[in-house]
């Protein structure tokens, strides 16, 4: 009787206490690359980011703002691979720029949500008692207010613009980060190595930043990917409701909602930004999936 264990597939039973561990950075990247969906995610996100950078730095076939009255609503051709819009602007160039704007909004939104949510989550988890009670109650309240209303209120109060759109989306996502982070911090606080640190006379600050924070970085990273995907969609929905950033620097969502009435006459104006959205969202989701598995020690061989 012979049995083989395939070390690449990992042990099913994790050692207790290693739940969140991530040994080495390049290990994560390698695991990500080995992960079939993670790899597709990497490629898609890489592509999306490259295109967005091209859009931001003007490395586009045409200037995204350049209007050409002679080429209005032209179907895709060699000159305009994704066609032109109602102003005769090149869709491809606009999609690049739109990607940049969308990513800009998504990144800022996630940065707001991630930083605020993670800090609040860590504080709530680590300090416990009343700070935790206050934070969790406020989180509950934020969670209970429909995100759309929050977004509406913020955009209406502060006026449209990518910063405010990002703020609107970010605020709605804060509670997720708080919840995602607090649980692990609660258990890390009681983990043997944080206790060991206490016995060794380490200060709370040191324990928090050197020992707790790095160990929730993995799940935060995964959540960041999911949040990016979500933010791109949320921005699109806000644009549909007229709360997106205004032209001329249109985001993808704005482009889609502007052209949704052109669907019958000029399908490419709808298709181009939609495909870009789908690409970005799928990319971030898959990257998140991959990352989730990559930071999970259970799928890591010793």
């Amino acid at each position, binding site marked *: 009787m012979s049995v083989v264990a395939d070390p690449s597939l990992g042990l099913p039973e994790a*050692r*207790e*206490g*290693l739940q969140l*561990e*991530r*040994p*080495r950075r390049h290990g994560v990247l390698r695991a990500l690359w080995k992960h079939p969906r993670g790899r597709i995610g990497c490629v898609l996100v890489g592509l999306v980011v490259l295109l967005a950078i091209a859009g931001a730095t003007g490395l586009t076939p045409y200037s995204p703002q350049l209007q050409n009255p002679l080429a209005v609503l032209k179907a895709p051709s060699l000159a305009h691979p994704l066609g032109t819009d109602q102003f005769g602007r090149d869709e491809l160039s606009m999609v690049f720029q739109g990607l940049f704007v969308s990513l800009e909004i998504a990144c800022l939104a996630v940065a707001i949500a991630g930083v605020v949510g993670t800090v609040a989550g860590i504080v709530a988890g680590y300090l416990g008692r009343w700070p935790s009670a206050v934070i969790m109650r406020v989180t509950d309240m934020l969670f209970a207010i429909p995100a759309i209303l929050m977004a509406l209120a913020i955009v209406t109060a502060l006026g449209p613009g990518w910063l405010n759109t990002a703020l609107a989306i970010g605020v709605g996502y804060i509670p997720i980060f708080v919840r995602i982070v607090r649980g692990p911090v609660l258990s890390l606080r009681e*983990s*043997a*190595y944080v*206790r*060991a*640190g*206490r*016995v*060794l*006379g*380490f*200060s709370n600050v*040191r324990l928090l930043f*050197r*020992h707790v924070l*790095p*160990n929730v970085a993995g799940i935060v990273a995964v959540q960041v990917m999911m949040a990016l995907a979500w933010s791109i969609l949320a921005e699109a929905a806000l644009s549909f409701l007229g709360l997106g950033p205004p032209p001329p620097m249109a985001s993808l969502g704005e482009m889609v909602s502007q052209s949704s009435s052109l669907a019958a006459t000029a399908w490419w104006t709808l298709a181009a930004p939609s495909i870009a959205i789908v690409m970005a969202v799928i990319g971030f989701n898959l990257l998140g999936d991959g990352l989730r598995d990559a930071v999970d020690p259970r799928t890591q061989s*010793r």
Partner: protein
Amino acid sequence: MSGDIVLQATAVEKEYPARGGPAVRALRGVTLQVERASTLGVVGESGCGKSTLARLMVGLETPTRGRIEVMGHALEPGRALARQIQLVFQDPFSSLNPRITVAKALQEVLVVHRLGSTRTQRQSRVDELLGLVALSPRYRDRYPHELSGGQAQRVAIARALAVEPKILVLDEPTSALDVSVRAEILNLLVRLQDQLDLSYVFISHDLAMVRHVSDVIAVMYLGEVVEHGPYGEVLDAPCHPYTRALAAAIPVPDPTRRADPSALEVSGRPDAAREPLGGATGCPYLGRCPDAEAVCAEQHPALRPIEPDHTVACHVALRAPRRAPRGPLVERAPS
């Protein structure tokens, strides 16, 4: 043995608030002392409060009542005497931060306590510590998961020793390790004690192991010390019925000898009930004790000397004649 007491616990109680019920009384008046350069072994069944005692001793938690003194200084809430007393945990892997290399983990301790003023000083101290626990310097840059269990436990011990403590509390330091490395850690501990004049509190389930390293043994049952004395007396001539059951339950790695089944007559619930069966006043071991008498239900037995150094908390044992040493073991009938 010198009479120098480095750790003194007096009437220590610890209660944990429990949701929707009375508080869990994890420790119920424990009095113990550890002498300089000696080892106190603590045994007892799971959940009897051994780890709680360990946490209290190193100041991770504060006793609800009672007092703990380390090197003559009372432990105060929130002020751990890190430089005097250190703790080594059961599972070396979970007590080491998985993202920090061996050398960095040791250096961090030195930095926090400002031991060694320069980087090179600290580095040489790290090498020294690794040498102390017999780890070659090539493990310096390994992460915990790249170590074997025995090596990881050595690193944990080295880290505890980094602050040059006088006392080490070892909470089941070998039970997560393989049989083959157990010996290695025990040998190391014995050597370090001699070399550094350390005092140990050695907590374990494994009586053979405890017997091998301890000078004095305390047997705990439901948050109380029920028997306390020199290793030879406590384990070879146990007085308390619980100690007897414990000694008898251990399978002897020798097919020619077999435990005396009579010592094992443990009736009642085998899982430790949270509240002692004897109620508030009676003996906590009441429901499981084969020798119980009427007095056991009425009076809580205090720890009283049966020999000069040997105390027992059992009404019956204090009256009854001592059993023969090694009583529970009989020759196995040839099969």
